[in-house]
């Protein structure tokens, strides 16, 4: 058994930020990730981030990742890679499988779950053909492995993931022949849709993919118009020559460990579905367990980093590393930045949804 002050599960933007805060406060931290490298999705984010200077605006995501890794290294944070957390007991103990064969146990005074989210699938005829993949998978292929998944891509979903990955597929040299959106209006930021449009990418609103056709892999894709009840309109089918279908139909928080630990869970569709109830300190219904990032409601990397810091600050304070005043001061600064990121027509809904979760926590206390 290994003992530590804080164990952080997941070394993406939230987990890295949480671990850095804890280490800076003077806690012993172990940061655990199932992947071979830390950074989570940050190293796939080759685009420049929005926000203000404090949110790293104008900086490409992977550079923010590099900066976080450098800070983690300087702080001598113990990073356990290739480690899957398979069990959580009594709110303080983790069962970890390293390299898929070696069992380890870790006892931590505080646990921060920053496990992220997983992509949603859309099922249609032919969806198991090679060439059909999550938009995130395509993004990993082009931006991390530098392998292009195909030359003619149909993107399902016009949210920010769909439009950002479409743009990056163009940058990788593919053609995006259609962005298909089931809703009557496009979802992502207008600056992203505008970039695609001036590159000649057509958008099909109120459309869905009916079928992917092909012998051994995708050769064509049939799209169809949807009526106001989201039912396919017969006779509006269009067959497009394509070798790749990317699905960007939202993300679902990875809450298995929180459920296993017995954390109270609530259902907030706008944040991705089931999320652990948590308070303004990012603490769940179990006192020793905190959450941060997409597990606490799907948002974006900028908010994930701020939530990670928040969880780290409060976990450290609960260990006695910060006075109540200092805790409040640091927390206040982060909440100001979070409120900014959750403002405007795109952020307002997320802010309200987060407030709803926080109000649930105060009711149960």
């Amino acid at each position: 058994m290994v003992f530590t002050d804080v164990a952080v599960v997941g070394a993406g933007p939230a987990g890295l930020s949480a671990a850095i805060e804890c280490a800076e406060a003077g806690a012993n931290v172990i940061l655990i990730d199932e992947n071979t490298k830390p950074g989570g999705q940050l190293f796939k984010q080759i685009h420049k981030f929005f926000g203000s200077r404090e949110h790293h605006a104008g900086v490409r995501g992977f550079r923010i990742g590099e900066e976080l890794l450098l800070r983690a290294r300087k702080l001598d944070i113990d990073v356990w890679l290739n480690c899957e957390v398979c069990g959580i007991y009594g709110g303080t103990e983790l069962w970890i499988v390293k390299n898929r064969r070696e069992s380890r146990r870790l006892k931590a005074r505080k646990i921060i779950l920053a496990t992220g989210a997983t992509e949603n699938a859309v099922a249609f005829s032919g969806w198991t053909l090679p060439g059909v993949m999550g938009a995130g998978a395509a993004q990993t292929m082009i931006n991390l492995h530098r392998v292009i998944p195909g030359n003619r891509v149909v993107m399902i979903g016009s949210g920010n993931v769909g439009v950002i990955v479409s743009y990056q597929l163009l940058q990788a040299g593919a053609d995006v022949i259609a962005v298909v959106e089931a809703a009557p209006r496009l979802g992502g930021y207008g600056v992203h849709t505008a970039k695609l449009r001036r590159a000649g990418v057509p958008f099909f609103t109120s459309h869905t993919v009916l079928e992917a056709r092909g012998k051994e892999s995708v050769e064509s894709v049939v799209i169809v118009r949807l009526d106001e009840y989201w039912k396919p309109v017969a006779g509006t089918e269009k067959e497009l020559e394509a070798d790749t279908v990317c699905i960007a139909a939202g993300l679902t928080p990875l809450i298995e460990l929180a459920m296993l630990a017995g954390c109270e869970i609530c259902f907030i569709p706008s944040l991705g579905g089931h999320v652990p109830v948590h308070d303004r300190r990012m603490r769940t219904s179990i006192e020793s367990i905190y959450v941060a990032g997409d597990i606490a409601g799907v948002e974006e990397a900028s908010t994930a980093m701020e939530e990670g810091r928040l969880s780290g600050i409060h976990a450290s304070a609960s260990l006695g590393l910060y006075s109540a005043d200092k805790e409040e001061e640091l927390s206040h600064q982060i909440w100001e930045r979070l409120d900014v990121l959750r403002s405007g027509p795109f952020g307002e809904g997320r802010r309200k949804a987060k407030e709803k979760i926080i109000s649930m926590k105060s009711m149960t206390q």
Partner: protein
Amino acid sequence: MNDTKKKAWQSEGVKTSGTPTLEELTQTPGFPSEEFLYAGPVAFIECVEKIPCNPCETACPRGAITIGDNITELPMLDAGKCTGCGLCLPSCPGLAIYVKDYTFEQDRASIIFPFEYLPLPKKGDIVEMVDRFGETLCEGEILMVNTSSRNDQTSLIKAAFDKRHFIGVVSMKRLVT
């Protein structure tokens, strides 16, 4: 602050076709007014949605771009202060700013736009200039390709094109490898 220009509104264009319409753009505070449109190099800020973002404001050395403390406000361009230097272009994470100059030559206007595709054009190349819908409007001659490392892989391309397409042209067609 000019309140009429700061009113909350929604671009139908970006939600349906993907791009704001020219009519919508002329109502946003980042689009140069008629008076400055044809008067020399000036920035066109095609930012039509209230998203929390403000790097363009600090990028401008002349204080020609104002967003204010509430960073979801749309950027307001003071076209009278704008010299068309282009420093705001690579600062915009949304690649939504370009500089156009109607007075460039007798028959040709010029544009500087951000470009993040490879291969890059070379000086002297003839390329296809496109509008917001990706439709080719006319040819363009590449005048400059700025790949300064401070712009972190956002290249700035300067091209000259037929003045008659001054309003329509926003970028160039992606080159094929």
